[in-house]
């Protein structure tokens, strides 16, 4: 398929997942702020902004600032609004390869942003989760399992690893883990699965283990890494007898095995640092995918102002 279209599909997957996960992360943060009496609002907001990679802002961070920077403000590159806007723009560029249903679902979501802005934060987060779930559902049932699909899944999985890593950092940094972990599990829709898997006994460590390593839960980091590797495998037309010629595959496989084969205690000992490493692996894998599959599309760019 065209490199440019492959790139668009990859980014549609990433941006939609990012919008979804940002809503999940904010949901946790807002609930923790409300429920945890020992929480210092400023420190915790500062930590979250730093986990999300936001460095330049003015004023003292508080929950309203979080909502603006991470949810509503389309000019803030890390906001849900920006992610949905970018997903829509990528879809517009790949429109002929998307089914009408997916396009309409993405477009309608984008058009609904102004209404979502007026909602109460928890309602807005659930709206974002519902919309992105609906788009994934339509994609799942209407897209052929061709290269386009694999690029879409690759983007989605890499982003999910990256964002779940950020979510875990947020939970680990929260001062009151007895509130943070159950809330984090719920935000991932993992609470019931977790309870079933661990038969009702829960501790921070197990919650972290579940979101990091569970092979059956689709939002865990290990499942998402495996999903990304599968997508790359499908894209690789001829299988290799030994080793990996594909840099992205090597990076993701190494990240996964490091999580799986190292003692859990070692990983959770300094979870935020581990998670930052994982994010760096994701970024490197994403660059490797670009270099290998999309590089051809970036020879020159549109020069604005030319009207035909």
């Amino acid at each position, binding site marked *: 398929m065209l*490199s*440019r*279209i492959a790139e668009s599909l990859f980014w549609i997957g990433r941006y939609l997942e990012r919008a979804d996960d940002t809503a999940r992360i904010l949901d946790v943060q807002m609930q923790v702020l409300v429920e945890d009496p020992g929480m210092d609002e400023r420190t915790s907001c500062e930590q979250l902004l730093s986990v999300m990679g936001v460095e330049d802002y003015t004023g003292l961070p508080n929950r309203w600032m979080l909502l603006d920077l991470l949810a509503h403000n389309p000019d803030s590159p890390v906001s849900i609004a920006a992610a949905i806007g970018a997903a829509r723009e990528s879809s517009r*560029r790949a429109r002929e390869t998307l089914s*009408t249903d997916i396009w*309409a679902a993405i477009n309608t979501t984008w058009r609904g942003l102004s209404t979502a802005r007026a909602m109460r934060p928890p309602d807005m987060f659930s709206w974002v989760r519902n919309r992105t779930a609906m788009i994934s559902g339509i994609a799942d049932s209407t897209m052929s399992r061709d*290269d386009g699909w694999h690029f879409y899944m690759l983007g989605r999985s890499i982003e999910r690893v990256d964002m779940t890593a950020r979510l875990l950092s947020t939970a680990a940094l929260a001062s009151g883990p007895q509130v943070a972990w159950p809330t984090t599990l719920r935000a991932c829709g993992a609470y019931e699965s977790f309870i079933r898997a661990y038969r009702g006994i829960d501790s921070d460590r197990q919650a972290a283990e579940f979101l990091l390593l569970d092979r059956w839960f689709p939002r865990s980091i290990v499942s998402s890494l495996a999903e990304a590797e599968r997508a790359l495998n499908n894209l690789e037309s001829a299988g290799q007898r030994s080793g990996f010629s594909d840099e992205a595959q090597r990076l993701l496989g190494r990240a996964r095995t490091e999580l799986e084969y190292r003692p859990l205690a070692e990983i959770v000992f300094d979870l935020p640092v581990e998670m930052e490493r994982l994010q760096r692996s994701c970024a490197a894998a994403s660059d490797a995918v670009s270099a290998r599959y999309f590089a051809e599309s970036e020879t020159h760019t549109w020069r604005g102002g*030319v009207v*035909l």
Partner: protein
Amino acid sequence: MNTSELFDGYGPVAGFDEMFEGTEVRPGYRQVHTSFEKMGADEVRLRADSLASSYLEQGVTFGVEGEERPFPLDIVPRLIEAQDWDHVERGVRQRVLALEAFLADAYGPGELFADRVVPRNTVVTSPHYHRVVAGLEPANGVRVHVAGVDLIRDGHGDFRVLEDNVRVPSGVSYVMTNRRALSAALPEVFADHRIRPVSQYSQHLLSALRKAAPAGVSDPTVVVLTPGVYNSAYFEHTLLARTMGVELVEGRDLVCRSGRVMMRTTQGLEPVHVIYRRIDDDFLDPVQFRSDSTLGVPGIINAARAGHVTIANAVGNGVADDKLLYSYVPDLIRYYLSEEPILRNVDTWRLGEADQREEVLDRLDELVLKPVDGSGGKGIVIGPAASPDELAELRGKILADPRAWIAQPVISLSTNPTLVEDGIRPRHVDLRPFAVHDGDDVFVLPGGLTRVALPEGELIVNSSRGGGSKDTWVLARASDPDDEGDMAPTASPVAGVAQSAGPAFDSQGPDLHVQEQEQQQQQTVSTGSLSTGSLSTGSLSTGSRGGLSTGSRSDAC
């Protein structure tokens, strides 16, 4: 029924109205008229609103100065009766064939110049005449793969040709989307008619493009070439690519290597054989035309000259769109086809000819003046509506470059009922039928794009000037077979297979006995003694499922 306020104040129309003849409804429109009366104003508005929001959701848009706008679609359809359409169809086909012959001649032997049908100067001074493609023989002889011929109906209801578009005519996507949207908005009205379908356009286009492939290519790769997302017709480009199942490429996706055009894919470079380009000549190849163009593909013209790729529509077709050449088309039809023109031109003065120019300059305030290479209503001056200053400026421009202008009488475009603020009112319409030439036959899509000028009295119907569109229904002939209509084929009844249901999900809901048991179990859940066995045999009503999860959650937290 007191619902006729919709058409109240429609009034007798000065020119030709598509629906009313005086105060009488024309026969073809009777069912539509009755249906709208029956629906009443509130219902019609409700449906018009849902029509508009469905276009917003689907993103059926066009660009104006870089901004995406929904394409306005009026809820009242425009009907064309079978015999009227026959006339249009034959006329459009004839015109396309004559223009095809003209282009082949003008870029080839030039016999028409020798025979003095059109002065050589008229053709070679056109800004759209490209010497670089002279002598280039297209693969199957076709240069006009797609044509859009703009028609209007004059005061007598006769169709007249306003202009020809054989470069990159746009709008056909709205013909297809309008049909789907309107049949969803007015299903019952739609079902009352036998309307000829429009959905087959893409198949005809793809087939024509494939037939135009360079010789020796048995399974050609066809692509649609778009300037990009900022182009006003981007929506159309995506729709055509999507419905043909081919790639939509931008200039940067293509590259020329040793006289062949390749596209950049995730598997490396792959050859392209036919390019349905939606980029103007000037931007197509920076090597040959505008060197600052970033939209085109350097070397694409050479690849076409080498016969490795077909560009559709052909480069240089613009000479046939030139409005000065337009005035010669009736002569071209007689010269090449030995036929009389089926569709008449609008009377046209050529300002390059001294006596005609003088007459026009005397009557500037009563005529319409058009730049010969303008498109989309650009630069048109309507004499009666122009101020003395504007006319003086126009006079100066004409005297400076008379070749650049033609003049036509003011023609009153026909009107069609249209939903506006006050109700349903007459608004001016035109019609752009689309034709596809595959080398053997010219297919004319039944209907075409009806554009409507939404402001009262406005004569320019372009979307960029606040124009809207209408779904155009060509009624099937009584003799047409049923499957010509957009109707579902009558299928013979098939024995159905019963759907399988899950355990104990009958339509009545679980019986009382089961419900009682479940309520008891719910109590046992909270005491923590639920066995899995009782879960899988019991039928879970929503109520009990809710009870279960709250129960277990309160246990755990």
